[in-house]
């Protein structure tokens, strides 16, 4: 930003050991004068001379000006000069004395960390986060087991609320996106299949890819962005405003109150959403197959029945609870890690979404390896 125009500060050197200051020696008026002050030399050969700093035409001075002046005096002093202030307006005297009264903090700035140090710190942070996540997982598992043992202690109201907000409210967006994915798959395949006259195989393609991979993965990613982030933001804000601490002192375990309902709700809801995504995705593909490839609905369903086994469907649906667990745990964990203020809430929310999506895709890859090992 441009500094505002002011009667800026100036310094002239009428004789080698006299300096005349003028103008506004204020934060806004000084501009880049400090460079000039730093390089200014006073009769270098003759040490032990008096240097006169004349301030008679200084119009104003503030702490920044005083600070600069003091630094300059200090430098001259170290070079062996004696400094005399002359002609300063008495109304500046209190300010001029201020620097000597309360000397500044020795600005012990920690030296910028080296690349090596940064790698170490990052590794340490990642390690801490991993152990943190692991212990959070443990705590949650213990709480989950104990509340399954005593089902009356489960909080049904928040569970139902979460089912609604993470599940029912997500239906339109998941439906629309799945439908579009189905359309895109069929459309992309249409050209290739037509070349070989294998139009009918569009049912295999859409069915298998949707049911096994796209539906569970897409649903999980949308829910991670929608609900995982909301979990992190909610718990994060609560911990910033001491609500979590209040909960603990009231004898309500936050994990039972905040985490379990979310995990349970998401584990119930994500498979259902995945099924919804399956239906809409296949429907999208079906529609495209008819308009692009001339495969009618009946033919499509007929082929779909033969091509896609129940196993493929179950594999897709089976992944969903695992993804749900990942999303809910990561979201809540990042929420609890929030410390400090608004800034931290934002950061943890971002981290929760990135980590949840990352882990969901990694888990999906692991599933693929696993299923190929057992020939499914």
């Amino acid at each position, binding site marked *: *930003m441009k*500094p*505002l125009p002011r009667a800026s500060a100036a310094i002239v050197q009428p004789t080698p050991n006299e300096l005349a200051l003028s103008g*506004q020696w*204020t*934060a*806004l008026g*000084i*501009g*880049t004068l*400090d*460079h000039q002050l730093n390089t200014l030399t006073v009769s270098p050969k003759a040490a032990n001379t008096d240097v006169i700093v004349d301030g008679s035409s200084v*119009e*104003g001075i*503030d*702490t*920044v000006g005083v*600070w*600069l002046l003091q*630094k300059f005096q200090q430098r001259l002093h170290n070079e062996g000069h004696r400094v005399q202030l002359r002609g300063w307006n008495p*109304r500046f005297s*209190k*300010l001029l004395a*201020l*620097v000597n009264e*309360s*000397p*500044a*903090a*020795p*600005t*012990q*700035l*920690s030296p910028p960390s080296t690349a090596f140090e940064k790698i170490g710190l990052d590794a340490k942070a990642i390690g801490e986060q991993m152990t943190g996540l692991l212990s959070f997982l443990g705590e949650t598992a213990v709480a989950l087991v104990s509340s399954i043992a005593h089902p009356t202690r489960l909080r049904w109201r928040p569970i139902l609320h979460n089912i609604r907000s993470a599940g029912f409210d997500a239906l339109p967006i998941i439906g629309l996106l799945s439908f579009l994915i189905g359309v895109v798959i069929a459309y992309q395949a249409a050209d290739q299949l037509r070349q070989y006259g294998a139009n009918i195989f569009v049912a295999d393609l859409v069915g298998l890819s949707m049911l096994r991979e796209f539906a569970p993965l897409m649903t999980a990613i949308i829910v991670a962005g929608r609900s995982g982030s909301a979990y992190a933001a909610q718990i994060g804000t609560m911990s910033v405003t001491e609500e979590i601490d209040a909960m603990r002192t009231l004898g309500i375990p936050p994990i039972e109150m905040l985490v379990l309902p979310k995990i349970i709700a998401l584990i119930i809801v994500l498979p259902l959403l995945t099924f919804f995504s399956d239906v809409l995705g296949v429907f999208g593909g079906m529609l495209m197959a008819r308009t692009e490839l001339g495969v009618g609905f009946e033919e499509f369903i007929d082929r779909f029945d033969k091509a896609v086994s129940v196993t493929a469907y179950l594999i897709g649906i089976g992944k969903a609870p695992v993804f749900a667990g990942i999303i809910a745990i990561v979201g809540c964990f990042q929420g609890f890690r929030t*410390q*400090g*203020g*608004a*800034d*931290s809430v934002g950061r943890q929310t971002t981290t929760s979404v990135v980590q949840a999506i990352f882990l969901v895709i990694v888990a999906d890859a692991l599933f693929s390896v696993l299923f190929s090992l057992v020939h499914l």
Partner: protein
Amino acid sequence: MSDRADAKTVIDINHVATRFGEHVVHTDVNLQVQQGEIFALVGGSGSGKSTLLREMIMLQQPDSGSIKILGADLQSLDEEQAKALRLRIGVMFQHGGLFGSLDVRENIGLPLREHTALDDALIDEIAAWKLVLAGLAPETATQYPPELSGGMLKRASLARSLALDPELLFLDEPTAGLDPASANGVDELVLKLRELFGLTIVMITHDLDLLWHVADRVAVLGEGKVQGIGSMAELSKMTHPTIRQFFDGPRGRAAAYISDKQSKEQTWKQK
């Protein structure tokens, strides 16, 4: 600084009226603050002191009436003039208003970095010095606001409001939520600032000690108007119920008693 001498009245509020929908906050507020004064604004909750403060620091506009700050009429300012005026005003918010993503030194240096052409290194030095002036330990420089205690937060916020050496300083509840020792520290700090920089200070406070010992003049807001204005000693003789609540009741009497005793001790010493 040159234009200080001719402008003796720093704040001039005339016939200010404010309402939020049906709710009337101010009907007719008039008050003047002189240069170099420590002026306190008191009133019960809902009396509109925070609204008046927000109007004075250009965060809100009154519905009618005029407010002049440092000789400038707030209604008729354009963007540039408003900015120039803002640079001459410092504000310490009740909860600090420090930026959580910056450490204390960066918070204090931010106005300098934004509005001046000074070097980064120099700004850091000055910020560290302001920190010490505000009574904070040098180690606080690299801490982040959430790590600070309430008293430290207020001091850091004060240091930031002083970054550009304002001529006029607004303090919103400078001692609220502080322990007595820290509150005393703030009392002294306010007095020291006035002495050093010749600042005009306007504060909102309920702290009776601060009112008795630090404030030169106090304005009591109530029912949309200034109900009384003067030093605490003068106000204590007034009979308006809004004013009485600051003197009657155990707290009011205790603060008045201590203040009275101290002034007597001082006169004895002088004799």
